[in-house]
Each structure stands twice: as C-alpha cells, then as structure tokens.
C-alpha cells in the first residue's frame, strides 16, 4: 500500500486484526492493532445472510437477539426507556393482511449494496466496506441521526446514555449511532456472526454471496427468496425466505 493508512482506511481494508491494550501510564492506555492478515478487503466477496423464516422458531430468534447482545455488549442500558433502548437486532411478527399467515423474523441492518444511510451521512461516518458490510465510524459520527431517518429498516440506534462495560472489539459511545456490524470482528477472523452461530439448524446461512461454491450462494439459486423493501432497489446483503 503506497500511502500511509489512517484509522478509517485501516478499519475498512484490514481483513483481520487483533487488538491489544497496554497501560502505559495511569489513566492512559495505548491500543495497538496487530494484523493477522495484511491483504485488504476487496469487492470480490460480498458477505450476506439468508434467513429461512419457515425453519426458524421464535425461540431461535430470541437466541439470535441474545447472542447479539452478548457479543456486542448492548442491552444493559439503565436509563433509556421504550424506543430509546438500542436494538441492533429485533424480533418482528408480521401477518399477511389477506391470508392472515403470521411470520416471525429477525430484523437487523440489511447491509445494502446501496445503503441510504451512507448516502445521507454528512461526515462519511456511515460507510460500506468493499465486502458489503455497512458500519458506523464512531470517531466521525457527530450524532445528527440523519442515517436513522434514512434507513428503511429501523435498523439503527442512537446511544442515548453513557455506555459502560463495552466490549473491547466493539467501542460504543454516547451521542453516536450504532447498528449491526455483521460481527465484522468475527468475520475478519473467518468466523460467522454471533446471531448465525446461535441457531443450530440451517435456518440462518452466512457466507459469501458471490462465491458459487458457498452454501448461501447455492441455496439462493435453488429456493425462492426475497429482500425487504426490494422496491427500493438497495440490493440487501440479508435475504429472507418464507416471507
């Protein structure tokens, strides 16, 4: 890489990092990142998820929500009430107006190919990695919440209070916007997102949408699937079957 990396490029292009924190003086900590893999993220991959609501039980969805909370460290807020509470992933129950069929599904950031949140963000804090994962750079977010106005999936939360007990891999901050990261810290290590891992069956398949040999790609070729608000032509990374 010819130019010096700034923090943002670093986050966007590094496929695997591990963080180490050292205390160098009282009250001052130095965070160092060690690259496990120097190769940058490219658009040859497109991470995605296929959720089959016919195979997913309500208990499964609750497990997914719990796993996300535990992995990313949200949900322990004490002051926020009602709609102020963060919800990076939530359980939805929808009913067809004609047939009355009820479907439960997990809803989180859909990791759009053309994310409205990224379009509207004035400071480039909302960003999309080359591999399709949509993130918020908490150092650039000024807390204007325009991305929350623009997101068609109600996927983003605003940190309404001081955050304590943060996970080392997932810094959060009062006054900034946050959402599902598709567990980018796990994906970069070759693992699956926590919510996908939490489900035993193959109701949730995570993988590279472009890879013809991947399970998600092959399944999507075989079965009927849909995108939420497909009419907006955002080409979401999260797909559903059964709704």
């Amino acid at each position: 890489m010819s130019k010096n990396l700034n923090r943002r490029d670093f986050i966007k292009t590094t496929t695997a990092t591990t963080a180490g924190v050292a205390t160098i003086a009282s009250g001052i900590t130095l965070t160092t990142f060690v690259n496990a893999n120097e190769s940058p993220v490219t658009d040859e991959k497109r991470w995605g998820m296929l959720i089959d609501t016919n195979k997913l039980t309500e208990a499964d969805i609750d497990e997914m929500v719990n796993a996300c909370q535990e992995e990313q460290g949200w949900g322990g807020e004490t002051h926020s009430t009602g709609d102020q509470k963060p919800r990076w992933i939530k359980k939805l129950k929808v009913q067809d107006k004609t047939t009355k069929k009820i479907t439960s599904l997990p809803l989180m950031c859909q990791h759009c190919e053309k994310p409205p949140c990224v379009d509207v963000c004035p400071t480039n804090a909302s960003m999309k990695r080359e591999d399709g994962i949509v993130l918020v750079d908490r150092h650039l977010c000024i807390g204007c919440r325009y991305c929350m106005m623009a997101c068609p999936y109600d996927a983003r939360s605003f940190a309404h209070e001081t955050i304590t007990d943060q996970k080392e891999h997932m810094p959060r901050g009062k006054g900034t916007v946050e959402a599902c990261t598709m567990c980018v810290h796990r994906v970069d290590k070759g693992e699956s997102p926590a919510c996908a891992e939490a489900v035993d069956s193959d109701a949730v398949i995570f993988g590279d949408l472009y890879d013809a040999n991947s399970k998600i790609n092959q399944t999507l070729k075989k079965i009927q699937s849909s995108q939420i608000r497909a009419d907006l032509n955002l080409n979401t990374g999260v797909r559903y079957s059964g709704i």
Partner: protein
Amino acid sequence: MSAIRYLQTEGRSFGFYALVAGLGVLILAALGGVYYMEHNGHWVSGMSNRIVWGMPHVFALFLIVAASGALNVASISSVFNKKAYKPLSRLSGLVALALLAGGLTVLVLDLGRPDRLIIAMTSYNFKSIFAWNIILYNGFFVIVAVYLWMMFERRMNKFSHKAGLAAFTWRLILTTGTGSIFGFLVSRQAYDAVIMAPMFVIMSFAFGLAFFVLVLMASYKWTERQLGDAIVDRLSNLLGVFVAAVIYFVAVYHLGNLYLAENTGVENFILFDGGIYTQLFWYGQIILGGLIPMALIYHPATKGNRSMLGLASVLIIIGGIIQLYVIIIGGQAYPMEMFPGKEILEGYGGIAQYTPSLPETVLGVSGIAVAVIAITFAVKLLPFLPESLADTNHKDCK
C-alpha cells in the same frame, strides 16, 4: 426620491435592556438545558430511536427556512428593482442572517456530539444533502454579508444589484436543499416527495416575511420612528399571497400523496385519524396559521390595521412552527411501510410516542431568542434602519 438616511437605534431605553435581559435569560436557560442533555445523554429528552428528530429540529428548521425568506424583501428591491423596498434591504439582510444563526445554533447544540462540529466542517460526503446544506448555510452567511457590505458602502452600491441576484439565487438553492433533506428520504411515506423542495421555498417566503414584518413594526414603534402605510400595506399584501401559496402547495402535496395507495396510511394519519397530529394540522397549520391570517390581511374590517397585521404575522409564525412539527414529528411517528401487504404485529410499528421535554423545547425556542437578540444589537451598532419610513419619503416610487 430623497436619499435615505439610516440611523442606529439608541439602545439605551429601559425597554431595550428589558428585551435583552429577557432574551438573555432564555438563552442561558437553553444552554443549561443543552448541558443537561449532553451530560446525561439524550435519554433525558423526549426523543428516541423512532422520533430521532424532535423539538429542536422543528425550531431549527423553521428558523433556517424563515431566514432565506426574510431576504426576500431585499431581493425584491435589488433583483426585481422595486424601489419602494430599497430602504428595507439592509434590515432584510440582517434578519436573514440572524434567523439563520439562531436556527443553526439550535441544530448544532442538539447533535449527539456537538464537540465534533469540526468534523462536519472538514469531512464531507458530497452525496449527502446534509453536507450540501452545511455548505449552503455557510455560503449564505458569506454572500449576504458581502451583499450587506455593498449596500452599506457607498462606493460599492453599484454592485449591490449583482450581489442581490447572487444572494437571491443562493437562497433559492438553500431552501431547495432544506426541503430536500426530507424530500429525498425514500424510506418514509410522509416524505419521499420532490414537491417538498418547492414547498419549503414558498414556506420560507411566508415565514420569513412574517418575521420581517414583526421586526420592522416593532423596531419602528419602539424607537418612535415613522413607518408609513404605503410600505406596510405592500408587505401585508405580499404576506397574504405567500400564505395562500403555502396552502396551495400543502394541498397539492397531500392530494398527490393520497393518490398513491402506498401513502394512504400516512395521509389518513395526518389528515383524519392521527389524534394530536390531525388536530395540529387542521386547527394549527391550516386554520390558525393560514386561513385566519389571510382573513386578517384581506378582510375589509381588519385590512390596513397594524395590530391585525402584527397578529396575522404572529399566527403565521406559530402556524409555521406547527407545520414543521406535523412534517417532522408526525412524519416520523407514523411507522415505515416495511412489509407492503402485511401488518406488523410485534417488534415494530404502531404510532411512535413523543413527549417533548422541557430542555429540548427551551433549546428550540431559544433559537428565536438568539435571532432577536442579534437583530437588537446589530441595529444599535450599525445603521440598518432608515430614520424614517414615512409615506412622503417614497410616494414617487412604484
């Protein structure tokens, strides 16, 4: 026409100090509220993940919209060459700058991280309407300041027509940008309508002129200067036309939305069964902020009456704030149509609740105080106001 003599206000009366003190207290209270909200986090406000923009945004956007409209009086003089408005041009530019300053102060102080304002100035996403607005607001300050300088400085007077044209063009783009903040939000049924851009432009004409009329009448009354009927009647007529135009755009916007099946839900919500939002729309926005001011301006019984024009202006401002409340809060309160053909039973949906807290409301209102206090000091420091606007001074003007 004799040369216009501009004169500073004395600014030493009890009324002056009382006004400044009152506004100062309001601004201090708002700063206290900001500290409280920023220290604790936004959980102390009524805002949430569903109503992400609340009372501060209602006032901020009202003031920003009104700001560009307040410049119209100067534009009519220098762009459309109506000499009768020329003596008012300086004040028009000042009111525009003051309103914008008030609006932006509120907007910035409600950010989750106002301390990071420098990022908003240095890291631009040129695809963002918001980022464009930041450029448009800053540009407005610069252009109007230059325009004012050309009006103040005799040697530069000859350029004031061109500067006025630039400012007029810029303000049209600015309000188009402000309306587009909402108009380009495809995900929400209440927005996603390009007509919002011109609607905001025409709203700015009405709100800005109403504010200008109040400032003009108050400053001439309080400084005991003469203000002739000719100029007031012209402004009054213009105000009535602008209010009618706002109602026309609102009607087209809602009729257009009603025609689309995907938007009937939100239209029914705002127009018929949205509780507080429906009441605010009909009683506040349409009747109080539209029909009554028009009646006061045009009805023979009240036409030409200064107090009635003042009342009409106040009602237009209140109606305008209510209109932005209905657009901003009402538009968010109604849930997004995420699953067409399906009903969401759990997890999302329903009408979002919003109860504005005191600190966020005071912050919003203080934007008006910032604007008024800026005007009050500016007219004391610099000669913005003509010594007299008595009818004889411009009887020969068309």
